[in-house]
Each structure stands twice: as structure tokens, then as C-alpha cells.
């Protein structure tokens, strides 16, 4: 099921949570909504589910306008952040709930409901736990019950709100891989919300980076990491350094000195680059300053270099070869090899 969000605006108490957001999600895609808290990612997910009403704009499921359909009519599988499992029901009853509440004509007979619920539990690898209550399960197991419960209504779309947020690191990694396999096996259009970029980049076909109620960039992991299209995306995803620069006559200057980088357009700008995308230079124009701190990080060394004047220092972190001398006070000169200017 393809989902199209068209110019959605959502206001809470006059405070806009989403400004004119448009997004197209292809059928069968696994999409991550990534952003810091308050970026509107959960609001967007809840709007797609129908748990919130948009102030303006429309949402299409396939070719049908679903904007005014109720949650029940949209037939989406929603996995809540804290799972929202029904605590007084057994695992089996939780999973069977969606079938049990169907109107009389569409409700399968009891034995059939039970069979389907057990089948779903098998699919999420929880066979044998059907009589337990949610409080008797581990976090990862609850998560999978929530998923099986959402799948019971045979949804066209699967929506997950911070699916791994409440789990510890190890379980999180396992479930991440498991969810990817599950998605590939079932082929549902899946949208999940996360604030963890590693999770988004590893798991999703495409990542939607959001900030302050707007979509900053939509693209594959490679796109958003290697070709960030805004200062926000550049600094939000991965490590990065940025410096205020001035382009004059096609040459990028920092603090009045040429950096050895060239650009098409003149004017004030910010220069962004990643710590690993630099090379140390012996001579010629570049960025030069004393090392103020350095630390060993696995196979590399990270040096913090102070650039600019003593009154307005800019600290940037760069990766240096292990053999390079990067003791405090040593003067380093380097030039970014991959970089981007934002005017």
C-alpha cells in the first residue's frame, strides 16, 4: 500500500507541530522517520495512523483519500512505544483482540481466531508463551507480542513508534535485524519512528530526517550521510565540524586566510566536513591550529584542533593517523577532502 502525505499541517493549541509536510512512501518500503525530540516525527506517524486529525492537508492510502477515515477504518497496524499491551489479558488474548472485536459478520469463529493468533505467535517466535501475561515477559518479548497483535488485523501498513526505545542495547540489535527480516518476509509498507540515527541508517530503505516540524531530507542511508542537503542534516547525522567562512574570488577563506578550497559562489557561508574527511598537509594553504586535546578511538586518533583567533576560537575534531604527532600544543595543518558549503 502506497502512502502519500500532502501538505500536512498540524497545530496543537496554536503551536504548529508540523508545517506543510509532504511525503510519498512506496508500497513495500521500510521507512524511518528520524529526528530529535520535538521534531514532529511521532505526530506524523500518528497522523498517518489516524490517531490525530490534521489541521490542514490530506493523506492518501493508495489512490483513496484517507484523511477523514477513522483509525478503525484505516486498517493500520500500530505498535506503540511502550507497547500498550492489555495487562489483564494473556498473550494469546492480546493477539486475538483485533479479530475478537470485529463486527459479527466479519468475525472468524472462535477456533479460527485461536488458530490465527497461535500462528502469529509462531511467526514472532513466541510459541509456548501464549498463556503468559504481559508482566511475565521480557521487553523484547513484549515488543514481539505487540507486533503480532498489530499483524492480526492483516494491516495494509505497519507503523511503529520508537520500536526499540525501551530495550537494552543487545536486545535492540537483535530485534533490529529480526524486524528487517520480518519486513522482507511479509512485504508490508512499514514506517517507524526513531531518534537513533544508527537504527534508522541500518534498518530503513529510506530515511526521512525531520527537524522542527519539517522534513529536512528524504533519502537512502548513503544520501543522508554522504550528501546531506542542509546544515541540520549534516550536523545531526554522524560527526561533523563546521566553520564560518567567506568565499572571495572563488576561494574559501577562514579568518582572512585562504583554506585551499575553492567554490563557485562568493559570500558568507558555513563550511561543513566530517572528521575522517581531512588530510594533513605539510605546506600550502589550509586550516592550521594547535591541538588542544586528543584521544584514541579504536583504530584511529581524534584530535581537537583550535582554529581561528584566540578571542574567537573554533574547536573542530579531526581524525589523524595514529603515527601523526598530535600531542597537546602540536600545530596541525589540514585540508578537508570532502566538504560542503551552506550559504
Amino acid at each position: 500500500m502506497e502512502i502519500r502525505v500532502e501538505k500536512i499541517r498540524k497545530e496543537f493549541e496554536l503551536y504548529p507541530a508540523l508545517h506543510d509536510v509532504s511525503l510519498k512512501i512506496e508500497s513495500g518500503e521500510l521507512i524511518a522517520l528520524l529526528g530529535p525530540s520535538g521534531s514532529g516525527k511521532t505526530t506524523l506517524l500518528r497522523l498517518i495512523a489516524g490517531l490525530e486529525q490534521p489541521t490542514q492537508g490530506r493523506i492518501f492510502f493508495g489512490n483513496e483519500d484517507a484523511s477523514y477515515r477513522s483509525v478503525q477504518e484505516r486498517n493500520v497496524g500500530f505498535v506503540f512505544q511502550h507497547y500498550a499491551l492489555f495487562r489483564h489479558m494473556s498473550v494469546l488474548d492480546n493477539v486475538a483482540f483485533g479479530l475478537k472485536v470485529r463486527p459479527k459478520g466479519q468475525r472468524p469463529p472462535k477456533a479460527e481466531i485461536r488458530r490465527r493468533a497461535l500462528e502469529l505467535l509462531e511467526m514472532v517466535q513466541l510459541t509456548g508463551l501464549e498463556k503468559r501475561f504481559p508482566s511475565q515477559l521480557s521487553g523484547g518479548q513484549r515488543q514481539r507480542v505487540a507486533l503480532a497483535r498489530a499483524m492480526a488485523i492483516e494491516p495494509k501498513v505497519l507503523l511503529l513508534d520508537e520500536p526499540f526505545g525501551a530495550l537494552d542495547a543487545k536486545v535492540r540489535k537483535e530485534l533490529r535485524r529480526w524486524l528487517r527480516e520480518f519486513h522482507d518476509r511479509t512485504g508490508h509498507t512499514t514506517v517507524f519512528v526513531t531518534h537513533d540515527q544508527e537504527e534508522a541508517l541500518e534498518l530503513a530503505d529510506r530515511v526521512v530526517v525531520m527537524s522542527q516540524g519539517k522534513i529536512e531530507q528524504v533519502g537512502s542511508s548513503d544520501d543522508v550521510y554522504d550528501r546531506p542537503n542542509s546544515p541540520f542534516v549534516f550536523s545531526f547525522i554522524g560527526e561533523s565540524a563546521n566553520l564560518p567562512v567567506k568565499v572571495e574570488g572563488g576561494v574559501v577563506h577562514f579568518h582572512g586566510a585562504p583554506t585551499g578550497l575553492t567554490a563557485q559562489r562568493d559570500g558568507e557561508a558555513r563550511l561543513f566536513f566530517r572528521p575522517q574527511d581531512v588530510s594533513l598537509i605539510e605546506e600550502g594553504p589550509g586550516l592550521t591550529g594547535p591541538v588542544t586535546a586528543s584521544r584514541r578511538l579504536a583504530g584511529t586518533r581524534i584530535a581537537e584542533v583550535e582554529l581561528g583567533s584566540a578571542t574567537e576560537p573554533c574547536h573542530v575534531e579531526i581524525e589523524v593517523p595514529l603515527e601523526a604527532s598530535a600531542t597537546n600544543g602540536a600545530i596541525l595543518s589540514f585540508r578537508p577532502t570532502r566538504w560542503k558549503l551552506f550559504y
Partner: protein
Amino acid sequence: MSNERFKNPISESAPVRYGLIAAVLAFLALFVLTPLVIVFTEAFSKGIEEYLLALQEPDAVSAIRLTLLVAAIAVPANLLFGLAASWAIAKFDFRGKSFLITLIDLPFSVSPVISGLVYVLLFGANSMLGPILKSYGLQIVFAVPGIVLATIFVTFPFVARELIPLMQDQGTGDEEAAISLGANGWQAFWYVTLPNIKWALLYGVLLCNARAMGEFGAVSVVSGHIRGLTNTMPLHVEILYNDYNVVGAFAVASLLALLALLTLVLRTILETRYGSELSAGQKH
């Protein structure tokens, strides 16, 4: 070991501890236990036969019946009201919400006698509404409807106050999950909301019932004290006592005392078994 010399920072020395415990026990014995014992000794002072006869006396029977009738109307009414109010307050956002919470607490801060008096002023013979209602053959004050109204007023915070914090704490997550799975509003309420609050609801109903049956002040003002017609058990106790019918008064009082004890036992059972589901803060 140095353990003996270690003083627990939040503990008191032994004499202080035992002194405090003794003071509490003495207080309880004097103000709670003694009256309770006296109720039963006085009730049985002329033997069990007199006791049983006193309870079979027609006015006593009618007082018991009226009390049960009033509770049977007031408690379900407040159950529904309490559910509706706490549902509205906990699950929805609207203007005047905190004002509504204050209003629900009003009966706790108003003297019951005053609330009874309000009904007399509102529906009595000299009020605006009284003559109109009378022309339709409806008597509110000095009749059963007035007693029911006054009891509902006095007892209406009990269920709501028990449920509001619990439901606020539980939030709307479970209901959202239910409707996202296709449940309609009624199914979400019946299968999800109600089971989540059932013990707290029962607890509130228990307290509400105890108060409804024991209410004196408000009911006393609106009842008119007509023997065999508008006397509830607490009012009947007063009348019998004023008539120097000690056995009769204490016999009826013993029933109210038994109700109190039963309520206490049920409360304790609920609190020990389902304590975590009664109060806010429960997470699974």
C-alpha cells in the same frame, strides 16, 4: 562488629518507638475500640431475644429497607457518574477541567447539614420549585426522593476521586491500541478500560456505599423524621435513643457497625491483593 554501634539514621531509639506505638494503641482503644464494644454490649444487654425483637420491630424494618433502597439508588448513580466524570477528566482535554475537579470535591468541603438544607430551600414547600412539583404530585423534601438526592450529593466524590488519579496515570495508550485494532468506543471501554480500573472502581463503590448507608446530617434535614416512612437507619437510631429505647437503638446501630466492619475487611482485602492496581503508578 561495629554493627551495634551503627545507628539507623531514620530510626528512633527503642523507648521512643514503643512509646509512640503505645500512644497510638491507647488512642485507638479509647476512641475506636471502646465505642464499638459498647455498641454490641448495649445491643445485647437484655439478651439475644430482645436484640432480635428490636430488629423485627416494624419501624426498624422499614428503616433498614429505606436505607437499602437509598443505597441501591445512590450507589449505582454515583458509580455511573464517577465513571463518566473520571473518564472525561482523565482521557480528554477540555476547558474548565480543573474547575470540574474542584466541583467534584465540593461535597467533601460542605457540611452535610448545609447540603441537606439546600435541598429543602430548593424543593421545600416555600421554595420556587416546591409548589410546582406538588401540583404534579411530586414531593421531594420530607419524602424518599429528597433522601435519595441528599445521599447522592454527599457521596458523589467517592468513586470519581478513586478513579481520576488512576485513569490519569494509565493514560490513553491502551484505548488507542484497542481502537487501532478495530475496536469501537464501547468495546474499548468494556474490554480494555473497565478491566484496568475494576478494582479501584469496586473500592470506590465500597466507600460510597458505606457513606450512603451511614449518612446522617444531610438526610436528617430533608427526611422530616416520619417513622416507618422517611427514617433511615442512622435517623432511626437517634429517635430510639431519644425515646430511651437503648436496646433498640444499639441493635440498629450494631447493624451499621457490622457494615463498617465488613467494609473494613473488604477494603483490606482489596488493598493487600490489588494494591498496585488501586493506586496510580502501576506499570506493566
